C-alpha cells in the first residue's frame, strides 16, 4: 500500500480551501448585473391566497419585480414532481397532490413560498417584501399526524389525507406466526421530526443569456443532473440542452439538498423574466421552515418469539408524515427505504409491514441522513431490546441467537432484499470487546454509588446502500435509473482529470476518488484532479445520497480506468512490438511479460495524443467514460453500543461511551470513514437526545430557531470508539459498501436502548430531554 493509495488515511485535499475560507460556495459566486431575491412565504399553515397587493413594494427604489405563483402558473411552468411512484395495497398509484413551485391558490404550510421579490440590493428586496400586502383566508390546519386521516382533506381528491396505504411482506403468514408465538413483544414508537440544518443554507443564482438562450443555475444541490432533468422535463423552465446546473462547493446536505425546491426553480425562471441574474441565499429562519424535514413516524410493532427466543414474526404498522406535498423522494423513504430493512440482521422468517403515508399542513418530509433506514433500525432494535428485557435474556445474546449466519449468504429476506454478504457476529463480538461488556456491571455499580443511573444499549443495524440497481429500482417505482457515470481524461502530459456524476458536499470525494484512480494507474495522487457538480463539465450523473458515491460512482471510475488500461496495452504492445496479450499493466508500467521492456503510463498517454508510432486501427486520444449500474444494493452493517449516565436530580443524560464497529467492506481512506461515522453518530445523538421539530396546533413551527431547536455540540458527545470489520461487497469492483449514513442509522436506537435501560421506563420517546427523563424518574 502506498501512502496515498487505497487504504491510506490521506488528509482531505479539499479541506485546505474549506478551512482557509477559500471554498467557493453558491453565495460566493457573483455575476455582473446581479439582483437579489427575497421570497414571500405564507405565515399560515393553511390558507387561501385571495389577493396579493404589491403596489407599495414596487414603489421601493431598486425593486424590479414582484412575481407570484399566479405569474408562474401563467407562464406554464409545471409542478414539482415526486420522483418515486409508490403502489398502494390495492395496486393503485399513490395520490400525488399537485405541488406548484410557488403556491398560487392555497398555501399549505408555514413558510411555503408564494412569491418572489427581486431588487437591486438585498436590503431593497427585504424592504419591499415587507410591504407586500397579502390577503389570506385562513382554513383549519391539519397538523396532528395520527388524527390527519379522519380530518378535513387538505388536497382536492386526496381522501383522508392519505397519499398511500402501502404494504410489504406476507400478512396472513405473519399474523399466524404471531398467534402461535410463545411470546409476543409489543411496542409503540415515535420517530421524531428532524430539521436538517446543513452548515451552508440553500442558495441559488440564476443567469439567463438572451443572446444564446442559455440558462445557468448555480445552486446547493447534491445531484445537479437530476435537478436539470426535473427542471427541464417536468417543470419546463428551459430545455435540457439550454440549462446548465452547477453545484459548486456545497456545505453539507444530509439529504436536504437532494430535492428540487421551489426557490431555485423560481430564481432561474425569474432571471429570464427580469433579464438580470437573480441570487437568493436562505437565511437560517427560512432553512428551518422550508428545507425538507426528516423522519416523523408513529409506529406500532409486534415481535413474536418461540420458546427458545428465536424470532418467528415481526409485524409493523407505521403512519408516516409526508408533510404538505410529496417532496422529490418523499414517497420512497417510508416505504422502500424503510419496510425493506425490517429484517435487520436477523433471520426472522415472517415479516409484514404496512405504512400509511399522510399529508399534513407541515413542511414536506423527505430523506435525511439514513432516510428510512434509521427509522427501520429504530423499530427493530428497540423491539428486540424490549423483548430481551421482557424475557430476561441478555440483549447481546438474544441478538446473536437470531443473526443471519455467514453460511446463509446470499440471504433473501421476507421483505424483498437479497443480502449478498456479511458477518454480523464478528462486528458484535468486536464491539462487545471494545465496550468491555463484561465490565459493565461494575461500571453501573460505580455510577450508582455516585448517585447516577447507568444504562447500556445496543443496535445491530443493517442498511441498503449503493442506490441502486436501476431495473429493480424502476420496478419498485423510481422515476430514474440509479447508475452512475464516470469519465477519466488522461492529459497528454500524463496527469488525469476525472469527472464523476456523484457529488461531494463534505464527503471528501476529491481525496477518496483520487486515491482510487491514482492507485489504479500507479501515478502520483497529486496528478489526479476530481471534477464534479457541473452539468456543463460532467456528462451525466445521479448525485450523492444513500451512501452511494464510492460503491456506484467509484465503480464507474474503475470501469473507465479498466477501459483506459486495455487501450494502453494496445498502444504499448504496438510501441514495444509485442503481442497485446503479453502486455501487462502494473504499478504505473505497461510491461511485456518475461522481458525488461516497459513504458510508463505517461509515455503511453503522450503517444496517444502524439501518435507518431501508433496502431493504425486505434483512435488517438486517451480518455474513457463508463456508466456503472450496480446489480444489487450494498449492505453495510454493524453493531453500535451506547453507554449513558443519567443524573436523577436533573434528568440530564450524558453519553459517556459510544462504540461503533461497522462492516463497510473495503475501506479506501480509514480517516474519512471514521469521520463519516463520527458525524453520523453525532447526528444520531442529536435525534436521540436533543432535536425535535415541533409544530403547534395551528401549524406554526415553534422550533424555528436555535433558541428552541437543539443541535448537538462537541461537548454532547464522547470520544467515539470506531472500528471496522470487513466482508467485501461481492458485486462491485472495489468491494465497498458505503459509510455515509451508518452512524446516524445505528446510534438513535443504541442510545435510546441505553437511556431506557438506565431510567427503567421503556416508554420514553426521542428526544430524551432532561425534562422527559426527570418526569419518567419522578412520576
Amino acid at each position, binding site marked *: 500500500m502506498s501512502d496515498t493509495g487505497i487504504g491510506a488515511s490521506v488528509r482531505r485535499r479539499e479541506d485546505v480551501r474549506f478551512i482557509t475560507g477559500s471554498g467557493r460556495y453558491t453565495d460566493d459566486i457573483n455575476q455582473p448585473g446581479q439582483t437579489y431575491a427575497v421570497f414571500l412565504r405564507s*405565515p399560515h399553515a393553511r390558507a387561501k391566497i385571495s389577493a396579493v397587493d404589491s403596489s407599495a413594494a414596487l414603489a421601493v427604489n431598486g425593486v424590479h419585480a414582484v412575481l407570484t405563483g399566479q405569474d408562474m402558473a401563467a407562464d406554464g411552468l409545471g409542478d414539482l414532481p415526486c420522483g418515486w411512484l409508490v403502489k398502494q395495497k390495492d395496486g393503485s398509484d399513490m395520490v400525488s397532490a399537485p405541488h406548484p413551485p410557488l403556491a398560487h391558490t392555497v398555501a399549505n404550510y408555514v413558510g411555503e413560498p408564494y412569491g418572489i421579490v427581486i431588487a437591486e440590493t438585498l436590503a431593497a428586496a427585504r424592504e419591499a417584501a*415587507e410591504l407586500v400586502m397579502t390577503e389570506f383566508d385562513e382554513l383549519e390546519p391539519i397538523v396532528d399526524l395520527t388524527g390527519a386521516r379522519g380530518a378535513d382533506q387538505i388536497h382536492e381528491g386526496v381522501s383522508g389525507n392519505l397519499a398511500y396505504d402501502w404494504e410489504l411482506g406476507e400478512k396472513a403468514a405473519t399474523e399466524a406466526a404471531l398467534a402461535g408465538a410463545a411470546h409476543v413483544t409489543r411496542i409503540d414508537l415515535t420517530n421524531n421530526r428532524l430539521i436538517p440544518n446543513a452548515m451552508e443554507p440553500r442558495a441559488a443564482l440564476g443567469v439567463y443569456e438572451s443572446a444564446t438562450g442559455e440558462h445557468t443555475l448555480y445552486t446547493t444541490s447534491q445531484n445537479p443532473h437530476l435537478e436539470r432533468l426535473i427542471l427541464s422535463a417536468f417543470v419546463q423552465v428551459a430545455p435540457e440542452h439550454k440549462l446548465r446546473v452547477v453545484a459548486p462547493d456545497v456545505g453539507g446536505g444530509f439529504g436536504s439538498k437532494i430535492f428540487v425546491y421551489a426557490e431555485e426553480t423560481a430564481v432561474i425562471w425569474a432571471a429570464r423574466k427580469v433579464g438580470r441574474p437573480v441570487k437568493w441565499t436562505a437565511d437560517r429562519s427560512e432553512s428551518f421552515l422550508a428545507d425538507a424535514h426528516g423522519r416523523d413516524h408513529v409506529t406500532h410493532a409486534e415481535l413474536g418469539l418461540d420458546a427458545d427466543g428465536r424470532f418467528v414474526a415481526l409485524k409493523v404498522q407505521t403512519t408516516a408524515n409526508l408533510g404538505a406535498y410529496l417532496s422529490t423522494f418523499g414517497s420512497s423513504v417510508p416505504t422502500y427505504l424503510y419496510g425493506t430493512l425490517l429484517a435487520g440482521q436477523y433471520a426472522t422468517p415472517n415479516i409484514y409491514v404496512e405504512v400509511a403515508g399522510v399529508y399534513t399542513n407541515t413542511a414536506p418530509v423527505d430523506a435525511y441522513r439514513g432516510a428510512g433506514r434509521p427509522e427501520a433500525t429504530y423499530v427493530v432494535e428497540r423491539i428486540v431490546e424490549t423483548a430481551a428485557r421482557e424475557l430476561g435474556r441478555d440483549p447481546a445474546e438474544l441478538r446473536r441467537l437470531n443473526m443471519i449466519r455467514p453460511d446463509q449468504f446470499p440471504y433473501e429476506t421476507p421483505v424483498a432484499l437479497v443480502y449478498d454478504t456479511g458477518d454480523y457476529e464478528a462486528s458484535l463480538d468486536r464491539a462487545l470487546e471494545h465496550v468491555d461488556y463484561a465490565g459493565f456491571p461494575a461500571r453501573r455499580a460505580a455510577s450508582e454509588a455516585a448517585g447516577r443511573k447507568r444504562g447500556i444499549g445496543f443496535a445491530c443495524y443493517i442498511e441498503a446502500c449503493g442506490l441502486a440497481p436501476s431495473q429493480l429500482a424502476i420496478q419498485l417505482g423510481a422515476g430514474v435509473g440509479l447508475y452512475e457515470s464516470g469519465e477519466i481524461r488522461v492529459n497528454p502530459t500524463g496527469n488525469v482529470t476525472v469527472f464523476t456524476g456523484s457529488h461531494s458536499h463534505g464527503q471528501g470525494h476529491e481525496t477518496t476518488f483520487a486515491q482510487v484512480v491514482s492507485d489504479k494507474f500507479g501515478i502520483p495522487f497529486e496528478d489526479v484532479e476530481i471534477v464534479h457538480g457541473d452539468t456543463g463539465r460532467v456528462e451525466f450523473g445521479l448525485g450523492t445520497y444513500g451512501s452511494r458515491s464510492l460503491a456506484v460512482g467509484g465503480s464507474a471510475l474503475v470501469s473507465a480506468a479498466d477501459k483506459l488500461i486495455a487501450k494502453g496495452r494496445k498502444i504499448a504492445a504496438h510501441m514495444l512490438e509485442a503481442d497485446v496479450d503479453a502486455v501487462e499493466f502494473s504499478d504505473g508500467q505497461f510491461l511485456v511479460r518475461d522481458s525488461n521492456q516497459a513504458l510508463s503510463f505517461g509515455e503511453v498517454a503522450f503517444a496517444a495524443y502524439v501518435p507518431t508510432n501508433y496502431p493504425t486501427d486505434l483512435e488517438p486520444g486517451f480518455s474513457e467514460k463508463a456508466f456503472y449500474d450496480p446489480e444489487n444494493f450494498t449492505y453495510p452493517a454493524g453493531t453500535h453500543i451506547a453507554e449513558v449516565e443519567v443524573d436523577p436530580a436533573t434528568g440530564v443524560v450524558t453519553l459517556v461511551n459510544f462504540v461503533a464497529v461497522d462492516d463497510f467492506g473495503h475501506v479506501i481512506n480509514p480517516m474519512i470513514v471514521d469521520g463519516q461515522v463520527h458525524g453520523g453518530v453525532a447526528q444520531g445523538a442529536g435525534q436521540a437526545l436533543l432535536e425535535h421539530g415541533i409544530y403547534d396546533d395551528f401549524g406554526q413551527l415553534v422550533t424555528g430557531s436555535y433558541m*428552541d431547536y437543539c443541535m448537538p455540540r462537541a461537548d454532547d458527545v464522547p470520544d467515539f470508539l470506531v472500528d471496522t470489520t470487513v466482508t467485501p461487497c461481492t458485486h462491485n469492483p472495489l468491494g465497498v459498501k458505503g459509510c455515509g449514513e451508518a452512524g446516524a442509522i445505528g446510534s438513535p436506537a443504541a442510545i435510546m436502548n441505553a437511556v431506557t435501560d438506565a431510567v427503567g421506563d421503556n416508554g420514553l420517546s426521542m428526544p430524551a430531554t432532561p425534562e422527559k427523563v426527570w418526569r419518567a424518574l419522578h412520576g
Partner: protein
Amino acid sequence: MEQTGEYRIRAGLEDVWAGLNDPDVLARCIDGCQSMEKVGDDRFETAVKAKIGPVSATFQAELQLTDVVAPTAYTINANVKGGAAGFGKGTAEVALAEDAEAPGATLLRYQVKGNVGGKLAQVGSRLIDGAARKMADDFFAAFGEVVSGEAPEATVVEAGETSRYETGGQWAIWLAVFAALLLAMIFAW
C-alpha cells in the same frame, strides 16, 4: 400563549376608564404608535411602527371590544397583522376594580389568550413572553404618568405566571402586549 397580569393605577376608576378609551392618551403611551382611531363604538384601529437597529416594520391592529360593562370590564378581541413579520390574534379579558388596599387607586387584572404566527411563532414563546412583559411595563409606566399626573411606583413582579405591576392599562394592555411580541420577533430576527 397565555399571560395574566395585575396593575395598580393611581387614579380613580372613572378616570382610568376614560383614559383607556381616549385614543390620544393611548397613542402617547405606545412607543412608535403612528395612528390610533376609534372606528366604531367598540372598535379601534392602530398602526405601530417598531424599529430596532436597521429593521423596521409597521403592524396594523384591529381591536374589537365585546362584553363591555362600563366602567369595570370588557373583552378585547385583537387581530394584528405585520406582513412578512407575522401575525397575532387572540382575546384579553380585562377587569377594573377600586383598589381596597390603596384608596383612590384602581386595580386592573387581565388575562390574555392568543396565538401568533409567522416569524413571531418561529422565534419562540419564551422570548416573546419576556419581551411582552417588558413592553407592558413600559406602557403602563407611561400610562400611569399620563392618567394620574405622577410618576408610578416601582413595579414588582412576583414569581410565577402572574405579574403584578404598579400602574395600569386596559384594552391597550392587549395592544402593548402585541407590540411587545412584534418587537421581540424583530429582535430575534
